[in-house]
């Protein structure tokens, strides 16, 4: 068990190291001058030289990589080429906003989808189950930005005006102080992940409800509610927990488009902006951060799977 843990964590670290190489290679080491990519074709030689100096482009590729990696590890992420601000101060508040958005979405989506899954399983093959199963299949197909724009049309622009279409959060203000601006982006993420979790919960619950111990509990005359929530759900919830963790990792990428749709001041909207500006230092930092969250949450999902599955826990590796 411990050996497996250590092996998994080391593999995760190795993956992160390789990720950093891919990010660096894609943005800085490729043929073509990164300084010219940032400044555009009509840059003056003096500005090109200054930026080349600033990004250390005149050193060897290896030296550039290790300098850059050292900066990331120690938290000095360089200077934004577009705004000339330090990258860390540019994205610090945005990381907090995105983390809050994901946290709120997860804390609502996970219990909601688990309850929905239970409800569908209890009403298996009745009209309510058919309607919910089919609509969750349809919702699962929708791209995040389509859900987001659909919600904006319904609640912010055309059908009604009860919520803001754009998350106007003043710089320096935190998202948790202006909850109204968070509702639509969070609702988008919730609708995006709920179908996946509830479908798994339904399938697992259907299986458990057919088991002998549930029949036994019913025969003992226990109230239906007790049978479902005390006997069935705890046994059916493991796959739903795994999928929830995977959906949490998914949200790390999902925030990119959702934040862009609502101009929510988080890392996702910043990434799209910085790609548009060719602001390479910011793109590098954000890509690394998002990938790191993705790798770590996936790793946690794996570990969680082992912890909650006795057969795997005692398998010795």
């Amino acid at each position, binding site marked *: 068990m411990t050996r497996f843990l250590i092996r998994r964590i080391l593999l995760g670290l190795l993956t992160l190291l390789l990720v950093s190489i891919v990010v660096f290679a*894609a943005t800085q080491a490729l043929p073509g001058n990164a300084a010219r990519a940032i400044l555009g074709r009509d840059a003056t030689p003096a500005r090109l030289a200054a930026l080349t100096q600033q990004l250390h482009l005149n050193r060897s590729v290896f030296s550039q990589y290790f300098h850059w990696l050292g900066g990331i590890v120690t938290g000095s992420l360089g200077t934004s080429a577009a705004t000339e601000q330090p990258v860390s101060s540019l994205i610090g508040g945005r990381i907090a906003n995105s983390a809050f958005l994901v946290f709120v979405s997860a804390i609502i989506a996970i219990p909601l989808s688990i309850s929905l899954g239970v409800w569908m399983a209890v009403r298996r093959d009745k009209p309510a189950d058919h309607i919910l199963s089919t609509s969750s299949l349809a919702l699962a197909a929708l791209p995040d930005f389509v859900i987001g724009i659909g919600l904006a049309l319904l609640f912010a*622009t055309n059908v009604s005006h009860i919520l803001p279409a754009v998350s106007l959060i003043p710089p320096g203000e935190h998202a948790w102080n202006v909850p109204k601006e968070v509702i639509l982006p969070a609702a988008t993420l919730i609708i995006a992940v709920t179908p996946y979790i509830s479908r798994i919960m339904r399938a697992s619950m259907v299986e458990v409800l057919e088991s002998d111990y549930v029949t036994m509990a019913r025969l003992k005359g226990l109230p239906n509610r007790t049978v479902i929530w005390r006997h069935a759900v705890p046994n059916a919830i493991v796959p739903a927990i795994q999928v929830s963790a995977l959906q949490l990792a998914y949200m790390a990428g999902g925030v990119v488009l959702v934040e862009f749709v609502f101009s929510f001041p988080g890392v996702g909207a910043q990434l799209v902006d910085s790609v548009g500006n060719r602001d390479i230092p910011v793109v590098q930092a954000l890509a690394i951060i998002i990938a790191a969250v993705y790798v770590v949450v996936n790793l946690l999902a794996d570990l969680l799977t082992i912890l909650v599955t006795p057969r795997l826990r005692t398998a010795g590796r």
Partner: protein
Amino acid sequence: MSTPAITADEVAVAGPAIRQRQWMVLIRATMHQWRARIGLGIFLLMVAIALFGPLIAPHSPDAFVGAPNSPAGNGTLFGTDSLGRDVWSRFLHGGLSVLGMSLGATVIGVGLGLVVGLTAAYIGGITDEVLMRISDVFMAFPQIVLALLLVTAFGPSVPLIILIVGISTAPRVARVIRGAALQVVERDFVKAAEAVGEKRTRILFGELLPNVTSPLLVEVGLRLTYSIGLIAALNFIGDGIQPPAADWGVMINENRLAVSVQPWGVVLPILAIALLTIGTNLLTDGFARAAIGIDRGE
């Protein structure tokens, strides 16, 4: 994921005639489900709009036919967009790019993933380990982040987007196909093919491939659904096909600031993308259910 639909030994004994029939069995089982039939109907409708829309469009997608953001009427079915072009004509022209780019990306992604997955499963050992570690690295990025990273390096272009989406899809497919193929490589008919000295490519595509058809079909549907969403999104945020091209993603971005006065420029392409992805997903779910059903011998 599901295991191969057909029992492999059966196929090995019976030869090509049966293999052909397995595809048919799977597709027939899929089409028995009403959800899959609805999915296929929606998908074909959207493909028809994408293919034949340009032929029936009343105006050129680039022609200025009225004042910007004017409502329906005056010779336009859904009014004009933010520059005064006919919304209906741009909508009819705008599906081909989304659909074509997504199909291209899916063919590249599933094709590459299939080759990598089969190779990793068949050769095993170091090759398997290396291929899967490389897949891990690519899967450590959400697809959209990997795409944006490469757009930063190379600038937005249509072939690049198709290639990026395809390549970032491949490791996900490779995983599934490897898993399915691992259950086949140890079977007798593979050993028999090796014993008579069949070429490696012949074993991969002649012996292994026919036994992973059902997970493969599910992957094609799933990856097409995701590719449509991702490519429409990249076009929407301005990192894919560039304006003034008529494209559903581009249209949404061009018209979303004026959506309160002229909703159609956003509503039509949003509905189209939604229907296209829902159609492919219902069909994919049908494939998956059919594959499981065949497995259980139903």
